[in-house]
């Protein structure tokens, strides 16, 4: 005779039901909440420590910190303009190079590529995204830079007599391949797979009926893509652009190897320069004084605000697209 599980009149014995107790429920929930709050605190911590660490520099130099391109550890005079300009220029340039490529790749994979090789190619492009930036940096320094110096810069230099003066001014620079332009190129290669992957996902959200309707009217591929598909995901597309921009802004290692690391404004496209990230990477460990360190951290705060703004807008645009 097996006893019934439950007596009808009394509640079952409160033996140790695993994880059933009110207390264990509360503890678990508390742990989960604590972890989520820890995340919040970590990010807040980053911002706060950057602000505190960089404060001495802001106090000392005031608004001039952003406009001065001086960078003199001996005189303790620091200005962020050079790295800031370098950061923005390389990122924007990278975007200009990467955007058409990323669009082309994603459109190709979604519209034109035969189904059976589309997936492997997409995977290959995503693998490109996973390669760590230091590998890009090495490749840039040892492969791209020399090639660029020999095959682009030198010919342009020897030919400079025949070039219009604005062009020769634009491409003036030491022919070692380490300059703003090559850094932008490396950045472009880095953000290309990322942007094309996200953009491809966006395109795949377009309902089949929309595409079919457009084709049904007799449009060519080009017309369907440019007039129907891309406008359909317009907001998300801008979001993708900003995501790419955000990544480029913060990229450190790939750029540090190949940007030439000179302070001050770059004078031409092929001149060396610096970005915020490369400056910090190069100088922080051996910063000569507290003010030097503070200036570097202040640079970091500027970078954070830049990337935060760009990424916030990007997320908003992408999120609103998902409805």
């Amino acid at each position: 005779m097996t006893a019934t599980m439950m007596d009808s009149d009394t509640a079952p014995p409160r033996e140790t039901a695993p994880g059933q107790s009110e207390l264990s429920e509360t503890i678990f929930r508390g742990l989960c909440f604590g972890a989520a709050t820890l995340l919040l605190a970590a990010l807040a911590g980053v911002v706060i420590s950057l602000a505190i660490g960089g404060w001495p520099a802001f106090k000392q130099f005031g608004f001039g910190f952003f406009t001065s391109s001086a960078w003199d550890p001996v005189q303790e005079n620091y200005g962020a303009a050079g790295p800031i300009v370098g950061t923005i220029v390389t990122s924007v340039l990278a975007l200009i190079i990467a955007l058409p490529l990323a669009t082309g790749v994603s459109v190709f994979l979604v519209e034109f590529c035969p189904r059976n090789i589309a997936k492997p190619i997409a995977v290959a492009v995503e693998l490109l995204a996973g390669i760590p930036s230091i590998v890009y940096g090495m490749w840039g320094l040892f492969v791209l830079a020399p090639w660029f110096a020999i095959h682009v810069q030198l010919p342009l230099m020897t030919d400079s007599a025949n070039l219009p003066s604005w062009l020769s001014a634009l491409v003036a620079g030491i022919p070692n391949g380490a300059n703003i332009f090559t850094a932008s190129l490396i950045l472009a290669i880095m953000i290309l797979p990322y942007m094309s992957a996200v953009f491809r996902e966006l395109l795949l959200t377009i309902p089949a009926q929309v595409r079919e309707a457009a084709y049904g009217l007799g449009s060519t591929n080009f017309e369907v893509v440019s007039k129907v598909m891309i406008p359909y995901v317009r907001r998300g597309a801008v979001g993708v652009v900003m995501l790419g921009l955000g990544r480029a802004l913060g990229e450190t290692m790939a750029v540090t190897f190949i940007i030439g690391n000179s302070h001050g404004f770059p004078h031409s496209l092929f001149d060396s320069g610096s970005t915020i990230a490369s400056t910090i990477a190069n100088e922080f460990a051996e910063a000569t004084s507290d003010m030097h360190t503070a200036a570097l951290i202040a640079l970091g705060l500027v970078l954070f605000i830049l990337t935060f703004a760009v990424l916030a807008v990007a997320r908003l645009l992408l999120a609103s697209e998902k409805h």
Partner: protein
Amino acid sequence: MDRALRRKITNSVFIGLCGAATLVALAFLVMILWSLVAKGFGGLDAKIFTMTQPAPGSPGGLLNGILGSIMMCVLGMVLAVIVGILAGTWLAEYGGKTAYGQVVRFLNDVLLSAPSILVGLFVYEILVKPFHGFSGYAGGVALGLLAVPIVTRTTEDMLTLQPNTLREAGMALGAGRGFVIRSIIWKAAGAGLFTGGLLGFARISGETAPLLFTSLGNQFVNLKMSQPMGSLPTTIFQFALSAYDDWQRLAWVGALLIAVAVLAVNIVGRLVARETHRP
């Protein structure tokens, strides 16, 4: 030329351009992998895994960097998985729809895309400066901070995918909320959570910038995490920018090792993801 022909030509040009773009992207992948193999593979030998980094001109390997990277990545992943899974669970199961939850989710995304060098600065301020020393712990924490948003995000996504009836079925039997999560939902999402861990690991194994001011580097094999520790990326950074040929060769070997590790993890992640999508 009449309109129809013009449209056709435009279209063909367009298709060609798109195909060309894809070829360009693939070409870069091939070029980079080729360089890695061509310049790094030749330097691969037993010494790499048994000897510490050498002075210029002497024989040596990358053992200190390899061990240091492994140790700090493991520390980082342990931290990231614990915090990330719990935080992702909170977002998916408890407070994700509240205003506070939206804020946490948003800030998680910000941390996900934040420049890693800034995370390194932060950890410097809290773990290096107060203790007057670089350490493996600081490096591990920095890596953990970079991986945790990935784990959180993947956890939340994977848990939200689980059907509500699964939760109801558990609770209809009288089980508590947390118990249902731990004994049913986590298990059901298991493969997805594992992939999140892999993705996080793939990201941090190649990170250099945050390690520059947290673990700094150590030319000797050091297993004490309270001391500065070497890592593959920082060794590569130092060697690549040096003037010595043999150091530069070692840098390529290191780059190859990292690239292989990251690619391997990515592939494993994909295989796991594909396995679980079999109904």
